[in-house]
Structures are given as C-alpha cells and as structure tokens.
C-alpha cells in the first residue's frame, strides 16, 4: 500500500513538480493566478508548443529534427514577406509557408531515409542550409509593414489584421493561439493514441525492424514524421509572424533548444519514458510558468537559467529514478 503510494507519487513526479512550482508562484504573488495571466502564459508557449509537437513526432520514430528552428525562421519571414512585399491574400500567406514546411520535411526525410545519413547529422546540415536560405531571401533584413526596399522603393503591403488575429486575436475571451495550440495537442494526442497511423509511428520508432516485419512501410512512416515535423514548425513560424506582426530574422534559433527541453521533460510526464504529446505540452507549460513567475518575482535575469535547469533536473530525476528502480 505504502509502496503503491510511493509509486504513484513517482509516476506523477513531473506533474507534481509542475504543480509545486505553480502553487509556489501563486502564493508568492496573487496576480500570478489570475485568469488573464494564465492565458498569457498559455499564449506565450503556444509557438514553442507547436514546434515541440513536431520535435515530438520526429522523436517518436526514433529520429531527431534539429532543423525546426530554421524552419520557423524561414516560414516566419516568408509569411510576412508575402503580405508586405507581394500583397498576397490570406490563403496564399498561409499555404505557402505550410508548403515550405512540408518541403523541408521531405528534404530531411530524403537525406535520412534514402541517402541514409543519420538523423542528427542530416537535420543539422539542413538546419544550416535553411538558415542560409532564409537570410538570403530577405538579404538579412527583417520584414515589416511598408519597409524600405533595397532598391529605394517602399514595400507596398502591410501585415494584415486578419493574419495578426491568428496570433493576437481572441474568440470567446480565449486567445486564438491558445485555442489553436490546445486543439493541436488534443488532435495529435488522439492521432497518436487512437489511430493506426499514430501507433505505426510508435512501432516504427520502438523497433524499426519489427515494424518492417509487420508490414509497416517504415520509410513512408518516417517520411511522414519528418513532414509533420516540418509542418508543425511552419505553423510555429506563421504564429510567430502573427504574434509580433512582422517577420524577424533568425526568429527560430532559440526555439530549437526550448522545444527540445519541452519534449524531454515530456518524456517523464506520466512516467511514460517515451516522447508523447501531452508530456510535451506540460513540458512547455513548465518552461512558460517559470519564465512568467520568475519575471514577476523580479529574480535577476541572469539566474533564470539556473532555476530553469534546476527545476528540469528535478522533474527528470524524479521520473528516471523511478523508472530505473522499477527496472532494477
């Protein structure tokens, strides 16, 4: 009985850590636990969550997609430029970046599945290449309303209100990016848990040979995972542009590490020990809560990283001590 209690507390160790952090901030500062602030936190993690969902998918097939940051950078400037430079309608502004995300995913998949370069290596090189492409595309400039063009003219377009609504708008009092994020998390969770395709991803990642022998088209499944990874990163890029109303250069660089951290914390949520989208979401939540709460606490900015690192270690340690205790 006591053992069981211990087991549960370990199983939910990461959630307990998140809970403790949450309660701590709520007590310290009454404004932390306000309706508005909760949604601010959720909104602030929406972009990184989308990117992290992509990373989760690539990790499920036992891969690793390092190129997501660059994909965000490229798609965010492309989305902005389609409006600012070319005055395209919303539909084009949304589909072109998504298509780019898919194309990058296909490129990764080609290198990994066909050329058979190991995943980390392949996506690292794609990361460099896409980073170069996005800078070449804008010649190093950020893209914003009516920006002056290199040839001396002024860009004709602006980032449209309907586009910005995606990142800044509200529906029934809920921020649009939060709604999108929650829908995406739930949809991907259902996809992964309750559909054949989702299980094919897990089976392929868990044992590629077994998957092949079960008649799963592993190469197609892995390709799909990388394409989805690119696609979700592209959504992240679109939301990024919508959130800040312009296309910033190198916007995605910091998102890579942050999304990887979210995915890793997610490993341990519910004692799963494997990548899962609910866990990823909670990982992103933990990081978002820390940033928000520590800012409110007025902790010196330079110690954020220590606290972040410490809390992450704690969350992970609880789970892995548990997982290994069970195994041993």
């Amino acid at each position: 009985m006591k053992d069981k209690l211990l087991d549960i507390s370990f199983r939910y160790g990461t959630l307990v850590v998140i809970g403790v952090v949450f309660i701590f901030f709520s007590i310290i500062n009454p404004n932390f636990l306000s309706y508005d602030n909760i949604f601010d936190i959720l909104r602030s993690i929406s972009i990184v969550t989308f990117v992290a969902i992509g990373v989760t998918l690539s990790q499920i097939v036992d891969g690793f997609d390092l190129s997501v940051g660059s994909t965000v950078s490229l798609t965010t400037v492309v989305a902005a430029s389609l409006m600012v430079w070319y005055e395209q309608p919303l539909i084009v502004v949304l589909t072109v970046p998504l298509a780019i995300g898919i194309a990058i995913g296909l490129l990764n998949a080609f290198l990994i599945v066909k050329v058979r370069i190991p995943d980390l290596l392949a996506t690292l090189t794609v990361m460099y290449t896409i980073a170069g492409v996005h800078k070449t595309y804008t010649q190093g400039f950020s893209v914003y309303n009516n920006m002056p063009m290199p040839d001396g003219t002024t860009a004709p377009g602006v980032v449209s209100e309907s586009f910005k609504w995606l990142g800044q708008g509200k529906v029934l009092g809920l921020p649009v990016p939060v709604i999108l994020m929650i829908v995406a998390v739930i949809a991907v969770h259902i996809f992964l848990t309750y559909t054949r395709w989702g299980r094919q991803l897990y089976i392929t990642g868990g044992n590629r040979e077994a998957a092949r022998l079960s008649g799963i088209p592993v190469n197609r499944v892995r390709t799909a995972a990388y394409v989805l990874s690119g696609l979700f990163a592209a959504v992240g890029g679109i939301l990024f542009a919508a959130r800040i109303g312009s296309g910033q250069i190198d916007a995605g660089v910091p998102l890579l590490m942050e999304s990887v951290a979210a995915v890793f914390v997610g490993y341990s949520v519910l004692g799963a020990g494997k990548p899962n989208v609910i866990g990823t979401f909670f990982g992103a939540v933990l990081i978002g809560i820390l940033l928000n709460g520590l800012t409110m606490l007025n902790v010196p900015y330079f110690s954020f990283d220590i606290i972040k690192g410490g809390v992450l270690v704690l969350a992970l340690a609880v789970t892995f001590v548990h997982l290994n205790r069970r195994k041993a």
Partner: protein
Amino acid sequence: MATTSQSLLQMKGITKSFPGVRALSAVDFDLRGGEVHGLLGANGAGKSTLMKVLSGAYLADEGAITVEGKPVQISSPKDAMRHGIYCVYQEVDTALVPELTVAENVLLDRIANGRTWLRWGALNREAAKILKMIGSEIPVRLKVSQLTIAQKQLVLLARAVAHEARFIIFDEPTAPLSLEESEQLFAIMERLKAGGVGCVFISHRLAEVTRICDRITVMRDGSHVLTRSAKDAEHAEIIETMLGKTFAEEFPKLPAKLGGTVLEVTGLRRGTKVRGVDLSLREGEILGIVGLVGAGKTELSRLLFGADRADGGEVVLRGKRLRLSEPEDAVRAGVVLVPEERRKQGVLVDESVQHNLSLPILRRLSAAGFIRRGEERSHAERLIGQLGVKPALPGRAVKHLSGGNQQKVAVGKWLPTDAAVYMFDEPTKGVDVGAKSDIFRLIGQLAQEGKGIIYLSCEISEILGIADRILVMSYGRITGELSRDEATAEAILTYASAGEAERVEG
C-alpha cells in the same frame, strides 16, 4: 483458419547470397496444410535465411514460391502475410517493440494494418483472450521491456495465433523455453495443425523434432539434403546428414579430480527471484543447477557475478568474502559468467573476434596502457585454434559467425583469465549438436584443470550428462540436491515444482 488440408506451399530453387557468403543454393522446400514440418541443420546451414525469404524479410536472388500451385511474389513481410505466411523469428527482439504494451505487441500486425480507429478496451481484452488460449497470463498492459525472454517468446506465439495464418514458421521457438513451456507450445501446434495450418518447426533438439513433426527436411551448407517422414527417423542418421560426417551425440564427461571447497554461498537473495540460496562448490566439480524457466537461475548467476546487487547474503571465494557490486569485482576475484543472452550480453557482435577474445585480459596484453597488438593477435589465434572457431579469422566481426561459433567466443574469452569459478547459463541454447559437444569438452577440460564449474540449465538431459552434483531450483530457492548417481529426470522434476505452494503464500 483455412480448413483445406490440400493447401500447399512450395519453394523451388531458392538461392541467396550475402557479400562473401552463399547462404542458400538452389534449395527446394514444401509445406502442406495440417502438417508440422521440421527443418534441421547445423548452425549456419541456412535455415533462418530460407524462412526469411519465405516470410518476405529477405528477397531471394533466384527461385520461385508457389501457393497452391499459383506462383506468388513475396517481396515484403506484408506480401507474405497476404498469402497467410507468418514467421515467429529466432531472435525475439527483432520482432518486439519493447516500449509498447504486451497487448500491442500481440496484436501488432492488426494494429499496424487494421482499421484506422483503435478501441483499446476491445484490443486489450482480445489480447488477453489470445494469451489465455496459449496458456499464459502475462498482464496485457505491461511493457514488453519488462518481460523475461520466455515471456517475450510467448507474446510472439500469441501474435502468430492472433494472425490466423495458414502457414506459420517457428524458428527455434523452444530454445528459451523449459520443458513445461515447450509442451504447451506443442499443444498449441497440434491445435493449429488440426485446424489445417502448416507449421515449420526449427530446433536443434532432435527429440522434440522427431516427436512433434510429420516430416523433416535437413539442410547442410545452404543446400537441401533430404526430406523424409519423421516417424522412423534415427537420430544418429539425421545428425550424420546434418553434419556430413559420423557423429555420436553424447555428453563427453571427462573425469576430474575434486579438490577443496572453492566457493561458499549462504543466504543469497534479491527481491522475489532469489530468496535465500546456499550452495558450495569444490575445485574440479561441475555443479549443475536445474530448474524450470523463471526458477531464478539466471538471477542467481547474475548475483554471483555482481551483474545485479544482492539484497543480502554472503559469497565466500577461497575463504575470502567477496564484495560484488559490479562484474568487474567478480572477474578480478576470479568468478566469471557466460550469460544467457549471447548476442546481447555474451559477445560484442560488432567487434572482431580478436577484440572480443582480448577484452577480459586487456590489462595483461598491454604495457603502460598501450595494447601490444602482436601479442593480442597471437593470443586470439591461439584461442581460435583451441576453441575450433570457424572461420579461423581473428579479424572477422562476430556478427558474421553462426550461433555456435559465437558461443565459442563467448566461452573462450574467459579461458585465459584463469578464474577459479566458471558459470555457464544455458550455454547450449540454439547451438547445434556438433558445437554443443565442443562446448562440453571445453567445460570438461576446465574442470580437469581444477576450476569450479556452475552449469545452469533447464535441459535436464544435459544436466544429467555433465554434472557431478545437481541442485534443483524452484521459485528462488534450492529445493533439492542430488548426486550424479542418484539423479534421475523424475527426481529433478519433483523437486523443480516443489516451491510452488510456497510462492502462493509469499
């Protein structure tokens, strides 16, 4: 299940080469519905390769496959399944997904290829039902990574049953199973047979093969040698065709002089698997430890080797109490183990034979930290000669050796360590009769040199043949001790099921 006993599968002129190896040359094979067809051959004869061609894991270079007279193209496992062919692979880990649950692994193919939406309640119930059909009660929500080898094997069996296949290939399914569990498996095969399913059965245990099979096919060096009815087959004759030379299957027991006590174990325990074991071992003695699967033999050997840490108990070697927290400690003290899972634990499959053999004595082979390469090579050549590893190439990667030769490397690497106690955990698993007697000879030689030997196995006949003294283990305890003279299979079996009542209480 298909009911026509006429269903017929034929393979004709199958040829398959790997770089440097011709694994199959123009092999013919056929399988009828409602029969069990035994496939025999020494390690490396090409049995698994032939079956992998049949099940779509490999593509043959030449040859044709027909099902009921109609030629079929099998270029992927999916193709094979479409024609009702299903394979339970020899290396269970290649076919299981460790991080998923038992239920998912049982129903893997259905989940992977079935309908889009999954209903977990129904799937779990279904998996439990299938497991029950084959007499197992493994909890379906457990992760496969937490199962023992035997349990994993059962999961794979359950998968084949779930499949309702017309042709099922069992590639050495009994290697990791105890007698009892093997019997269960045979019962399942009988049932499948009655339902018109054709089974291929690969095993190195001749007794099983002649008992359960209707027909047998023998292969040698990638070629088909003969196919005949199993009923009146003589073991000696089969072995001769398999090995291509006359051979008497027996356990060459060499006489050894017993010395003083070398190892003394008292009250050794860990969790529920080893619950207080006392034993002692003398120099030159071969101590057989026998028990059903799950009796805790592997656990016991790992404790003595420091691979797992004991909760309590004492291990005294030559009067000195050992502190075992890592295998390193055991090796230094002079206790070594040839573990059960050869490919994952016994050898480094990606490394060369030479590197594997030099591993335990790297320190001795090096000067000031630098490995003396000439020395290392001649050491490897010496051992290869002594063990009869084939091919005799020190640079060959171990993964390219056949099972028996891999096992020789796993045993041989410990020979020069000059340890006081050698433990062997199921060393003959998946090893052909020729290699098996080589291994027995090696063990006998060690005993003659005055080493203490602990031989753990669930093969009662082997234990009876090789051991000077036998301990029977059951549910983590030693339940009986028999001398070589008084030991019989019946006595062992009685003791082996002795601990059961106790376990229910615990």
